């Protein structure tokens, strides 16, 4: 069977034009998807490291159990914990996120997403300055200048440039790449940089100074600057500001190069300010390059459910938000979390080593279709259907545009949403013991 216009569940681009071919054995083709996307869509079979049965760790070994046993064990762990952490959420649908918030309320947990180790600083920057954004279609139809800062879409978001940004065509951009100026600012010459019209290499950790210099030049105060800013000649920066000002519609995309270098949220604050200030001269927008396909969605769901987009502590019964205190890594670094439920993420691969060590010391429940390094330190492992391939539901693209993920094949396992609901119901049946 052929299914048209399937939404890809790999990255924040949410390409929705994938042609998926299935037969009795499952998905056999994902036409139109990039290599990252097709490996995700095609990687659903048992040969791809799928977990087949729920497991509970006994005497150091994971032993297969029935689902209900795993649900009850998970509920008991969360209920007995004083400071449970519900973490992950980037690779599942919003319907599961909503259940996650309900579970956090039920057991008084801290709920946090993988944004905490990627675009968390961007969120804090937005709290300071707001964000001048647009949907990706605006970029496609209007942008004649594109600036990639600290991101490498050619490798991390392979279809971004063709579908939405530098190489796309639209109403006011009929010439596509030819009619656009593409600039890359990064600490190394990435593949994206090699495709650009202009590449400006900056020293690691100098983003804040460079953006500040651009803002000074834009404000007409170039004379304050010395001849060089962090190794870049002033003339080069003055030229750059001139190019930005002359654009008809400019778009800045930024990645972890900006959020995770020295300055972190201050870098973002500075970049958001630059964008706002450029609007006094021409039209400009800015967008974070979100990684996992629905990491934007968990932020949206948490915001409408509890008022804040990440790192929310429900232990007092009311949402409390203070990243730096209530983010997953903060909690684990202080050895405060005494149990964790990890869903749709792999912190054992992505957290700093000392934080992973803290995670290894506490009971961990994992909900995931696949085995991954987090499985090695999990005490309860609950396999789920793959959201976006085997389960339908909502995901938010990097620009905030929501799409409905399709169910392409029938799942064998329950969905994240169903699992979370079962755990919550099991937790409700347990008496309050603290």
């Amino acid at each position: 069977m052929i299914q048209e216009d399937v939404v890809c569940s790999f990255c924040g681009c949410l390409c929705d034009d994938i042609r998926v071919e299935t037969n009795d054995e499952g998905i056999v083709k994902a036409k139109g998807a990039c290599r990252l996307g097709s490996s995700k869509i095609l990687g659903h079979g048992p040969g791809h490291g799928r977990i087949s049965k729920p497991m509970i760790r006994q005497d150091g070994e994971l032993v297969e159990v029935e689902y209900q046993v795993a649900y009850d064990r998970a509920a008991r762990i969360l209920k007995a914990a004083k400071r449970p952490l519900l973490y992950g959420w980037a690779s599942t649908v919003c319907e599961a996120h909503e259940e996650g918030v309900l579970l956090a309320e039920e057991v008084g947990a801290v709920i946090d997403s993988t944004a905490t180790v990627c675009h968390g600083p961007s969120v804090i920057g937005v709290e300071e300055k707001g964000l001048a954004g647009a949907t990706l279609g605006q970029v496609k139809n209007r942008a004649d200048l594109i600036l990639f800062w600290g991101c490498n879409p050619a490798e991390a978001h392979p279809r971004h440039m063709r579908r939405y940004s530098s190489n796309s065509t639209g109403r006011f951009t009929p010439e596509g790449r030819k009619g656009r100026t593409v600039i890359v600012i990064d600490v190394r010459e990435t593949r994206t940089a090699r495709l650009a019209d202009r590449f400006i290499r900056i020293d690691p950790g100098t983003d804040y100074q460079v953006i500040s210099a651009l803002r000074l030049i834009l404000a007409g105060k170039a004379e304050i600057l010395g001849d060089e800013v962090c190794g870049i000649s002033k003339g080069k920066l003055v030229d750059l500001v001139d190019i930005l000002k002359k654009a008809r519609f400019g778009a800045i995309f930024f990645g972890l190069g900006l959020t995770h270098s020295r300055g972190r949220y201050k870098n973002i604050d500075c970049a958001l300010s630059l964008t706002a200030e450029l609007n006094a001269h021409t039209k400009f927008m800015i967008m974070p390059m979100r990684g996992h396909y629905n990491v934007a969605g968990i932020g949206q769901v948490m915001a409408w459910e509890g008022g804040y987009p990440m790192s929310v502590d429900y232990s007092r019964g009311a949402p409390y938000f203070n990243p730096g205190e209530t983010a997953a890594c903060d909690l684990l670094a202080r050895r405060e979390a005494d149990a964790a439920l990890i869903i749709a993420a792999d912190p054992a691969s992505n957290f700093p080593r000392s934080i992973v060590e803290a995670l290894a010391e506490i009971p961990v429940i994992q909900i995931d279709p696949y085995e991954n390094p987090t499985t090695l330190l999990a005490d309860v492992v609950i396999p789920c259907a793959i959201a976006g391939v085997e389960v339908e539901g909502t995901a938010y693209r990097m620009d905030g545009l929501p799409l409905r993920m399709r169910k392409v094949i029938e799942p064998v396992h329950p969905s994240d949403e169903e699992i979370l609901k079962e755990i919550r119901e099991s937790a409700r049946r347990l008496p309050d013991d603290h």
Partner: protein
Amino acid sequence: MIIKGGVVYDPANGVLGEEMDICIDAGAVAEAAGGPTIDARGMLVLPGGVDAHSHIAGPKLNAGRIMRPDDGRIGTEPRRGLCRPCTGYTVPNSSAIGYRYARMGYTTVFEAATPIIESRHTHEELEAIPILDKGALTLFGSNWTVMECVGEKDLPKLSAYVAWGLRASRGYGVKIVNPGGGEAWGFGSNVKGLHDPVPEFNVTPAEIIHELARANERLCLPHSIHLHFNNLGKPGNYSTAIETLDLLKDIVPSRDRQAVHVTHMQFSAYGGTGWRDFESKAPEIADYYNKNDHATMDMGQIIFGSATTMTADGPLEYANARLLHQKWSNHDIELEESSGVVPLVYIRGSPVNAVQWAIGLELALLTEDPWKVLLTTDNPNGGPFVKYPEVIALLMSHKRREEEMAKLPELLSKRSVIGSIERELGWGEIAVMTRAAPAHVLGLKEKGHLGVGADGDVSIYEIDPREVDPGSDPALVERAFTQAKYTIKAGEVVSRDGEIAGIPQGRTFWTDANVPEEDMARLMASLKEKFEKYYSIQMSNYMVQEAYLSRPVAVRAGVEVAQ
């Protein structure tokens, strides 16, 4: 359920302060009923409150929440009883929106603006709001297809697009915000007036408004066009308001209602040439409304204190942010709209804010017919909806207004007429502005009244209108309206003395309008091209799927209904 012996105000049915019983059977008002009895003796009984214009769901709301963790902290309430935790004051979480409206006696609230392509988000949030019945108005004012149909003077095709857009967004009515301006803002400019052509599209705001109004009536939609004027928020803009209203005099409503609803009129009733000589032109606007019957408005009253402005008027928000040195979010939406969010504070010491405050009240007090003026704060643009009781007290009490004016700059008396207005609105007029009129303006036949067959939505307030004089006791009025003794939704008590007692899932109204097949076929050809060339998503993924409305109510409309 029987509500016994209350003092009932049901102006839609000519009931003004009669002591009578209200029976609710199977969720609707009935001649007789069994079941529990509520003793409402000595209490004010009204139909459930209806808010026809409030920002309660969608991308703008979340943009506000995310950029305002400071606002989140205000209004924090822990999980308690049936209630999930709450946060926020001007941008509360979805649960808080439902509980707080219900506590005030409101049972129906319409989201004021949803862009079609992001309507899935709007419906996700609407579904997350407990208790209330709701709907969403769909944005059409800067839409490429709309402007092309207007340019081609193809009314049947435009009507087909409006019908399709309402279906795609599961929207209820046609919202128009700064028509043409959203498209111009795509390249950082704006339209300056009704006859200033939209760049690249060669149509004017006047043409967009007029043709959308014609399409609206051709489709016999339950609601009229819902219009946010051009030049909103600018000194001297009252002339744009009157010019636009004149433009719509020839529109013949297809149903028993207005031809145009003008939203948050306060922001469009400004005189002066700049902020220094800024003054109220509410008397001119009210005078126009007193002489003409084709339009209604809502107040857009401002409340001193914190607000979060959010609108599809992108250039306006940019101007707000520049003027006030505030943080600024902007979100332009491909082929359809712009939008922005800016937090701000209305300050008593500011002459401009004081005049804005006066204008909202003047509009309501100088317009003779309360059916033409709905009570709103354009939540949360003028202030949060939880302040409606304060607005009611101000409208009902000259004394209350004088107390407030004493705290405001003296300049106010030169720039407005608020001090000279003696009128105090009565219980019946408040019932019209918060119940009967919003339901009528929206075309919701079973809302806003207590006749047999109406929805069993009732609010009961612990105040005896026969004994309390609101003019001299405004504090009693404000307190009573802040917390209903009982709020009843479809025959179920949902709030009692401020405690949430039931959390039913509300319904979502949307308009299902039919158009002739040949019109739809012509439209599809041009839409297909748009999706192939310009949209960043596929047409098959565009429409809001049925999964997003758990309790939909499709209101039938369309060309056939009109004939």
